[in-house]
C-alpha cells in the first residue's frame, strides 16, 4: 500500500472518517506518521478551545480576586486553589465518574430561528467532558498568572486614567486590561504550551477513546504495544509536539510584539519555562 493511499485512508481516522480498522500487522512507518498525525487533530482541538474559553474565564477570575468584594474573591480563590493544587490526571478521573452519574437528560433551547439541543450524556464523551475539565484547569492556572499581572499594573497609569476622566469601562479597556496582558504574556505563553502538552493525558485518564478515535499519544501507544517497539512511535509523537510547541511560541511571540509595540526597547520575548511546567 502506498503512502498516499495510507494518507487518504487514515488522515482523518481520529474523527471517524476513512478506514475503520487500524493496521494490525506489518505496520509501516508511514502508517504510524499518518495515524499519529491524525490523532494530533484532537490535541489541537482541545488546546485551542480550552485556551480561548479559559482566557475569558481567567480574566474574569483575576478581576474577581483583585477587585471583587469578599463575595466574589472567596469563590475565585477556592476555585484556583482546588484546580492548581490537585493533579489534572485525578481531575479527569473524578470529572468522568461525576459526569457518568449525571442522569441522562436532553435540553432544548428555542432561539427563534433555530433550535439548539444538548444532552447531558455528551459530558461523558471526551470531546465535551475532557474539554470542560481542561477549560476549568487552564482557567485556574491562567487566573493565577493574570492576578499577579493585575497587581503589578502601575498605580500611576491608573491614576493618570482617572485624571483624564475615564470612566470605569474605558479605563479597563484602554489601560488596565492591555497592561495586564502585556505583563502576563510571557508566563501565559508558557501556560499555553503546557496546556497543549496536557491534552495528551485525556485518553489515558477516565475518558475512553470511543471507537478508537484517540489523540496522537493514544495512537502512538497503540503502535508501541502492537509492535513492541517504542523507539519509533513515541519519537514521532514527540516530534509532532515539538512542532506544535514551536508554532505556539511563534504565535505568542507575534502577539507579544504587538502588545509591546509602544514600549521603547521592548524586552525580547523571554519564555521562562520554569514557571509552570506541568500539572
Amino acid at each position: 500500500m502506498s503512502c498516499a493511499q495510507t494518507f487518504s485512508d487514515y488522515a482523518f481516522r481520529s474523527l471517524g472518517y476513512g478506514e475503520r480498522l487500524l493496521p494490525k500487522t506489518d505496520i509501516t512507518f508511514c502508517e504510524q506518521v499518518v495515524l499519529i498525525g491524525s490523532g494530533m487533530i484532537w490535541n489541537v482541538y482541545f488546546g485551542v478551545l480550552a485556551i480561548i474559553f479559559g482566557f475569558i474565564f481567567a480574566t474574569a477570575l483575576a478581576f474577581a480576586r483583585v477587585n471583587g468584594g469578599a463575595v466574589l474573591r472567596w469563590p475565585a480563590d477556592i476555585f484556583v486553589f482546588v484546580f492548581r493544587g490537585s493533579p489534572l490526571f485525578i481531575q479527569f478521573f473524578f470529572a468522568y465518574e461525576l459526569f457518568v452519574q449525571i442522569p441522562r437528560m436532553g435540553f432544548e433551547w428555542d432561539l427563534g430561528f433555530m433550535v439548539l439541543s444538548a444532552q447531558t450524556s455528551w459530558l461523558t464523551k471526551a470531546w465535551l467532558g475532557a474539554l470542560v475539565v481542561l477549560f476549568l484547569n487552564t482557567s485556574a492556572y491562567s487566573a493565577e498568572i493574570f492576578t499577579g499581572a493585575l497587581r503589578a499594573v502601575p498605580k500611576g497609569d491608573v491614576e493618570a486614567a482617572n485624571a483624564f476622566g475615564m470612566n470605569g469601562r474605558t479605563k479597563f479597556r484602554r489601560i488596565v486590561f492591555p497592561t495586564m496582558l502585556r505583563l502576563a504574556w510571557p508566563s501565559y505563553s508558557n501556560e499555553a504550551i503546557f496546556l497543549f502538552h496536557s491534552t495528551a493525558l485525556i485518553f489515558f485518564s477516565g475518558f475512553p477513546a470511543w471507537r478508537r478515535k484517540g489523540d496522537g499519544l493514544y495512537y502512538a501507544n497503540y503502535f508501541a504495544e502492537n509492535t513492541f517497539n517504542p523507539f519509533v512511535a513515541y519519537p514521532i509523537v514527540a516530534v509532532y509536539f515539538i512542532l506544535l510547541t514551536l508554532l505556539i511560541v511563534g504565535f505568542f511571540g507575534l502577539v507579544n510584539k504587538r502588545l509591546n509595540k509602544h514600549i521603547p526597547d521592548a524586552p525580547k520575548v523571554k519564555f521562562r519555562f520554569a514557571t509552570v511546567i506541568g500539572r
Partner: protein
Amino acid sequence: MFEICADPRSLEGLTWLSCYLTTPKHSAMYFSILTVLGMLLAVVPPILMLGFAGALARRSKIAPIRWFGLGYTSIVRGVPDIVFFLFFPIALDQAVEYIRHKIKCSDVLEPIYQGNDFVVCQAAKMPLGTSDQFYHEAWGFSLAVITFAIVFGAFTANTLHGALNAVPKGQLETARAFGMSERQTFWRVHMPQMWVYALPGLSNLWMILIKATPLLFLLGVKDIVYWAKELGSMKTQVYAYAHPDWRVWYFLALLVFYLFLTWISQRVFDRIFARASRGMAVAT
C-alpha cells in the same frame, strides 16, 4: 479486622462502613499512599544529581558536553511528560533485556526483533520469570523512579542553571580577589548562594512532582489511582461488601489527599524561604 465484621451482610450504617473501610484491600490502598510518599522521597536524590549534572553540562567549556546538556533539557521540556512516562519504562526494559540477551545467550542466533515481537531468551528476562512477585514489583518501581528522575532532572537542570547565573558577578569577583581558586570559588561562594535563587524554582518543581505521582498508575505500579478504580467499581451481591459504583467518591478522596499534600508543602516552603533569605540581598 474486627470480630463484628465476620458477617458483613448483616451489618448496617456506620458499623458497615467501618468494617468496609478496614478490609484487607482497603489496607492495601492505605499502604499505597506510602508507595506514593516513598516514591517522592526516592526520586529526589537522583533528580538533584541529574539536575546538577545537566546544569554543569550546560556551563561546560567543552562544546559537545554543552550541546548535550542543552539538548537534554530542551527536548524534555518540549515534549509532554506523559510521552516520556510511556516511553522510558518500555525502552529501558528492552535495553536491559537486550544487553542481557547479548551476554547470556550469545549462542542464540535468531534476531530479537521478529516482526512485531521482541524475543529474548528466558535467562535474559528481567526480572526472571521464575522470580518472586516482589521482584517484579520492585523492578517496575525502579523503572518508574528512573523515568521520573530523567524527566524531572531536566527541569531541575534548567532551574539550577538559571540560579547559577543569578548569583551576582561581584560576589565571584570578590572571591577571586581574595585569591580563591576556581574550585574554591565554586564550592564556597557560588554554590551556597545559588540555593537561594534556586529555591522558588525547586519548590515549584516539587509541587509539579507531587502532581505527577498519579502517573505511576500508567507505569503499572499499583498506586492509589489503581486501588481507587479497583475498589470503587460496582460490587454485586457476590462480594461481601456490595455497593454501587463509588469511584466518584474514591477519586474525590484522592483529590482531597493531593490538595492536602500540596497545601502542606506550600506552608513548609514558605518557612524555608523565610529562613533561606535571611542575610541575603534578595528582592522578594
